[in-house]
């Protein structure tokens, strides 16, 4: 009974926050909604006995990855989403299509004979010790390949984020030619004052 109550509360929280992610116009609101989804999912992982995954979900996803997102949004000063003709077409076709997809998936999973016995809290316990043993014995090669992937990811991020020496000089005249920046007007005012 407790399991059902907790499941329905946090499932409702997750779905509501995911819908809020779609409805919000400003990316920072969407990012905070996604943090709520991830927290609710961490509780559901705990209900399923996966304590290690729940902790990693909070630390890596809700902690590290979402901080990266919020940092990028604030760095780029992202504003309210613009509307374009493409978004109208996407809404007209996308919303019924996605509703049909949800209906189909729910129909298939709800009708399937999967796990009719049900699952109660504490039936299965994935301890961190067992996961570590499995990870470093049976899944050692995938683990090492993953470390190479992360190394490549770090190098890719550094290469992409590094500014070229020639490009700022090329781009600077374009920016001033298109629209004078507010910063460039400030010195002039100071001179007048």
């Amino acid at each position, binding site marked *: 009974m407790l399991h*059902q109550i907790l499941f329905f509360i946090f499932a409702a929280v997750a779905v509501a926050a995911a819908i809020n*992610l779609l409805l919000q116009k400003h990316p920072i609101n969407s990012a905070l909604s996604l943090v709520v989804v991830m927290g609710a999912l961490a509780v559901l992982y705990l209900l399923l006995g996966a304590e290690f995954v729940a902790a990693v979900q909070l630390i890596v996803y809700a902690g590290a990855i979402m901080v990266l997102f919020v940092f990028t949004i604030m760095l780029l000063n992202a504003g309210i989403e613009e509307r374009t003709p493409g978004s109208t077409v996407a809404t007209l076709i996308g919303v019924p299509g996605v509703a049909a997809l949800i209906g189909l998936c729910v129909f298939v999973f709800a009708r399937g004979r*999967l796990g009719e016995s049900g699952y109660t809290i504490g039936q299965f316990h994935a301890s961190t010790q067992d996961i570590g043993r499995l990870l470093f014995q049976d899944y050692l090669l995938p683990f090492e390949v993953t470390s190479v992937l992360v190394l490549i990811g770090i190098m890719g991020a550094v290469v992409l984020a590094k500014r070229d020496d020639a490009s700022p000089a090329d781009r600077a005249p374009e920016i001033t030619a298109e629209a004078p920046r507010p910063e460039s007007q400030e010195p002039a005012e100071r001179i007048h004052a």
Partner: protein
Amino acid sequence: MVPISYYLVLSAILFCLGVAGFLLKRNIITIFMSIELMLNAVNLSFVAFSAELHRLSGNIFVFFVMVVAAAEAAVGLAIIIEVFRTRDTLNIDKVNLLKM
């Protein structure tokens, strides 16, 4: 007593909402967040199957998915910053050329 199919239905709903965000949103960062939502939905079904079948492999796969998601977020956000530097927009409809 919660049937495992409830978890799968929740996972499917979250995944479809992620697909909807990917199709409907016009901001690159929000589209990227929709992808993360889809990855999370898949993780939930992995953990649900892990508990149903009493196997630990599902938890290991979630671990790998998280590592890939972290690497993807780092590289993807670097690409987004680079796109914003070259065209001063985050609107996906205005990013229609690979090179400019």
